[in-house]
């Protein structure tokens, strides 16, 4: 009997290794090695073709002293500040409204707001590029119909970034609504009913009952959005190509630009390494939260 179990344990271990092997190989080859590679190449001057030349921490010094380098992080900061509070607030308010018992058409409205979530960023950005077109775009037509002056949306420094922020909120709002809806449905009806009996108004209810109870969802969405800010590329490529005057040159786009257009791959790796450190911090936070959240599945 002992022999049977020993052999069985051996077989189980072997199958265990066989089953995790493909995933481990791919993650090692395409995730771990390139990330270590970024750290490595960040110490070199390298154009992708010639032999890399070791230059120590010079790339990092350059990044933090180059106004355009720091600008790329600042744009990411604006992106977070400009999209996150708006998306959280709008998402929660819209979710509260459509979750009401008297509201007809939760499914339809939820589905409509979710359409842009399923579309590619580059696709929806390009539709908005046409909406914002200064001569014949619908946005300026609407403004003029209201007696307001049209704007050169995507070629005016501050406005271009504002447009990108707006499009991001527009695209992701459905995701925020769906997650908030799920959170609202977890709130026991008795909490709301007893508040109603006490004559508490909507604003107080939202502030003192709903907000604290959906806080875990808010935390999740916050961390996720901050991580997303460091991944923004498609919108900038489709709308402004980083311009006007570097005002929308967000950090991931900057990495691509210095790496692939200017062929400063060592420098680009240094920027990527800075990004990597930020990500490690953020993802750690997110993961701690996520594991505590998904345990209902166990």
């Amino acid at each position: 009997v002992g022999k049977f179990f020993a052999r069985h344990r051996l077989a189980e271990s072997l199958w265990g290794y066989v089953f995790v092997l493909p995933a481990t190989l791919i993650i090692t080859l395409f995730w771990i090695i390139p990330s270590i590679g970024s750290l490595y190449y960040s110490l070199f001057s390298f154009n992708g073709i010639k032999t890399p030349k070791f230059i120590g921490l010079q790339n990092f010094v350059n990044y933090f002293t180059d106004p355009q380098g720091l600008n790329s992080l600042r744009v990411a900061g604006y992106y977070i500040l400009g999209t996150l509070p708006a998306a959280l607030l709008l998402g929660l308010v819209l979710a509260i409204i459509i979750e009401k018992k008297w509201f007809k058409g939760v499914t339809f409205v939820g589905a409509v707001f979710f359409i842009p979530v399923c579309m590619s960023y580059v696709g929806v950005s390009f539709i908005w590029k046409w909406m914002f077109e200064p001569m014949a775009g619908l946005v300026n037509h609407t403004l003029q119909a209201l007696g307001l002056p049209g704007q050169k949306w995507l070629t005016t420094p501050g406005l271009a970034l504002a447009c990108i922020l707006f499009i991001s909120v527009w695209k992701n709002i459905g995701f925020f609504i769906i997650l908030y809806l799920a959170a609202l449905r977890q709130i026991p009806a008795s909490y709301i009913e007893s508040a109603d009996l006490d004559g508490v108004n909507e604003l107080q209810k939202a502030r003192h009952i709903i907000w604290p109870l959906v806080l875990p969802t808010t935390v999740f969405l916050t961390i996720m959005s901050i991580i997303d800010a460091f991944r923004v590329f498609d919108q900038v490529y489709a709308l402004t190509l980083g311009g006007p005057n570097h005002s929308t040159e967000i950090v991931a786009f900057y990495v691509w630009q210095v790496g692939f257009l200017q062929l400063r791959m060592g420098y680009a790796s240094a920027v990527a390494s800075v990004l990597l450190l930020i990500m490690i911090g953020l993802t750690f936070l997110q993961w701690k939260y996520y594991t505590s959240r998904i345990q209902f599945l166990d």
Partner: protein
Amino acid sequence: LKRTVAFRYVAGRTLAYLVIFCGVLLILIPFLWMILSSFKTSSQVYQIPLRFIPNPLSLEGYARTFEVWNIPRYFFNTTLVSLCVTLGSVLICSLAGYAFAKLRFPGKNLLFYYILASLMLPFQVRMITTFLLLKRLGLLNSYTGLILPWLATGFAVFLMRQITTAVPNSLIDAARIDGCSEPSIFLKIIIPNVKPGIYALSIITFMTTWNDMLWPFIIVSKEKLKTLPLLIASIAGGHMEITSMPWPTRMAAVTIVLIPVLILYSLTQRYIIRAMAITSGIK
């Protein structure tokens, strides 16, 4: 007093419906505007005063789109890559998920943390070096290059492990006593019991791959390997002759890219929304 309460009640609901109505319009109008513009002629879009409905209806934009791009090829590439990535990664990651959830082998926890660590490495951080690696492997401009790196993600392994953990051990033990081998336990016991997770992961993986622009953008330059997001990318920042095309043509191209997604979404939106919720850790 009663009247003011009733008034506030009605006013509140009207306002709520109004807000939602405006929101719905704001989501739908850009798509509508895209479709309407795609049927106009180049001069019609600049016409003042603005006319929403194209008159006469022009198919110029669509004709030109099919002339400039090999649209069926783009669809074929995108479908092929998305299907391969989805099938492959769901298989590979649910196998790994099963091993991490239910099998005992030395170094299991260490290996699991190693895979989890990859969650901290979004593509944007690895962009340059993954490109250099693919170049060295000779996989630039190849289907293998488009598919292979996405056949496993830390996230999918983690998700499948969490879901597989919920399968009762008694089912697995019973199968073992009946003499089932591990692969047949995986196929006959695990797969049927983690179906919701597999569906959700498939939907999310398929959607993400279908919509992904950055990866193909970096490793593919040959026309015959390009995927649909690259078609739009080429209108946004490609050659002058393409970026200077009239708006109706550009909108026709974007419509052709987005309409299938819109149709697929309208047929399956309940599953997609559920999948999003499951993969976000919410029931």
